[in-house]
């Protein structure tokens, strides 16, 4: 994980965005993670254009319980390999959270984000600046700022290793 300040556009989502909306069950048979981004958010009304229009460096910003539903890791790969550097959400569903950590894919828990989205304090297309290390998020379009909590120690170790597999390999090698 690199400690740098990231900049990109926001794609804003509500609460309880489930895995079928992120990556629909129609495409579960896919086994190549790099082919998964083309299906991102295809079934989410209003966000059908995400897969085509998302640019490397854009952020996914969501309310509570992001990624609820299925255990499919596809729903993490489809954003990771689309070039979304980090997902900002008030909270993540537990399987989704594990799947992100296990792939060394950063997520930030951002308090008050759900309400801020509802209040229009952070909108689709806003320019964001995110300091991953400090957890600072600034909406450059309107000047609002938010704070995100990094993950707990073990998860941080796994993330820093680049994912669970790499973490276990390091652990085995140091034995």
């Amino acid at each position, binding site marked *: 994980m690199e400690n740098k300040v990231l900049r990109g556009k926001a794609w804003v989502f509500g609460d309880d965005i489930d895995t*079928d909306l992120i990556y629909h069950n129609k495409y579960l048979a896919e086994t190549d993670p790099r082919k998964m981004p083309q299906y991102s958010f295809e*079934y989410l*009304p209003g966000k059908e254009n995400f897969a085509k229009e998302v640019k490397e460096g854009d952020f996914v910003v969501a309310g509570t319980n992001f990624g609820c539903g299925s*255990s499919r890791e596809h729903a*993490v790969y489809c954003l990771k390999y689309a070039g979304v550097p980090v997902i900002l959400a008030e*909270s993540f569903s537990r399987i989704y959270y*594990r799947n992100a950590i296990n792939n060394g894919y950063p997520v930030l828990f951002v308090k008050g984000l759900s309400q801020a989205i509802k209040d229009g304090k952070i909108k689709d297309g806003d320019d964001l600046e995110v300091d991953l290390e400090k957890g600072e998020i600034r909406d450059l379009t309107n000047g609002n700022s938010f704070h995100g909590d990094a993950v707990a120690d073990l998860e941080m170790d796994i993330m820093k290793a680049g994912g669970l597999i790499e973490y276990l390999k390091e652990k085995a090698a140091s034995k």
Partner: protein
Amino acid sequence: MGKTMIEKIIRRAAGKEVKVGERVWCNIDLSTARDFGGANCVLQFEEVTDKKGKVWDPDKVAFTFDLQAPSHSEKVSTNQKIIREFAKKQGIKKVFDVDWGIGQHVLLENGLVKPGDVILGTDSHMNLLGAVGAFATGVGNTDIVASWFEGTNWFRVPETMKITVNGKFAKGVCMRDLLTHIVGTLGADGMFFLSTEFYGDTIERSSLSDRITLCSMVTEMSGKIGLIMPNGKVLDWLVERAGKEVVDRVKSLSADPDAVYCQELEFNVDNLEPMTSCPDAPDNVKKVREVAGEHVDQVHIGSCSNGRFEDISAAFEVLKASKSKVAPGMRAIITPATREVMLQCAEAGYIQKFLEAGVIFTNPTCALCTAEHYGALPSGDVGMSTTNRNFIGKVGKGSHTYLASPMTAMATAIRGKITDPRDILG
């Protein structure tokens, strides 16, 4: 200070004392994957081990095929083949191919699940195995692959919620309705990361099938696991399948009387009514009579939540009481959870009667939970099903689904519009 079930289960699996909130490494009793996610696991394992890896214990790895069984796409066929070949190469005997049915149910019926077992699977409803006190959890392929190295994985010891349910269901009302009511009350994140223990006389009397329904829907409230320690007939059933060790496990893993809970809730079902999750979210809950009369195009009974013999029997009682058939123009589909369930239905004579009434039976599989299997809906169609999710477009773009009990589903199939089963059962 007393311990909750999950604290005891994780203590057993970690081989040390544990505290709530702590991250601990646990020994895995069974690491499973389906034809969904399974090929991803195999390919990832082969890649990271340079095709030289051996799973830590072939007896503790299982594969179940239920996403598309039998397959209807070359991709899934190929994925299934990848799994079969890997299992052969690794000496994994527990491969439940397309003839078996829904994974968790098959594992349970085959005696592979005991209270306290830590079980992983590529299925977010793995946790329905909490119905027999196992800690089973849905994970992605990386977690499965990681567990294949040394048979371990990490967990955060969760806080526990205690739900006590008392009272007797009125005619036409069942565990599914209670569950729908709880989802409506607590919301989609009402059990966020929690373990939930279920108690009360309603639970103590309940069948395994009802317990499965209850525990399967914990996922829909973002819970980690719902736990019920087997008692009575459920205990007898499990001992018969999984052996005598079950009894010791129940004794050693039941919660202490002074265990600490983060939240305690009580429900009484005496006055509960048939409930339904309206489109397009499981927590969009209403009483069935509030939406009675709404048009429905297709009714589907089955899934890991409500596809057992008892569920199909409950639907049958409604059919029998109606002295009627499926409404004209209605498609009514039953998908039994497993081959064993299908055989039970055949022996009870239900299949013939359902067929005479216009209902069709499919082979046991997950089916109705995806837009890529039996019963997918076209845009604009409204379905009612006994599955556990009704997110928008889940079983077909532009379609909508009501979730309800097998009784409500059957009553709706008979009348062709949403119907309170009490209108038929009297």
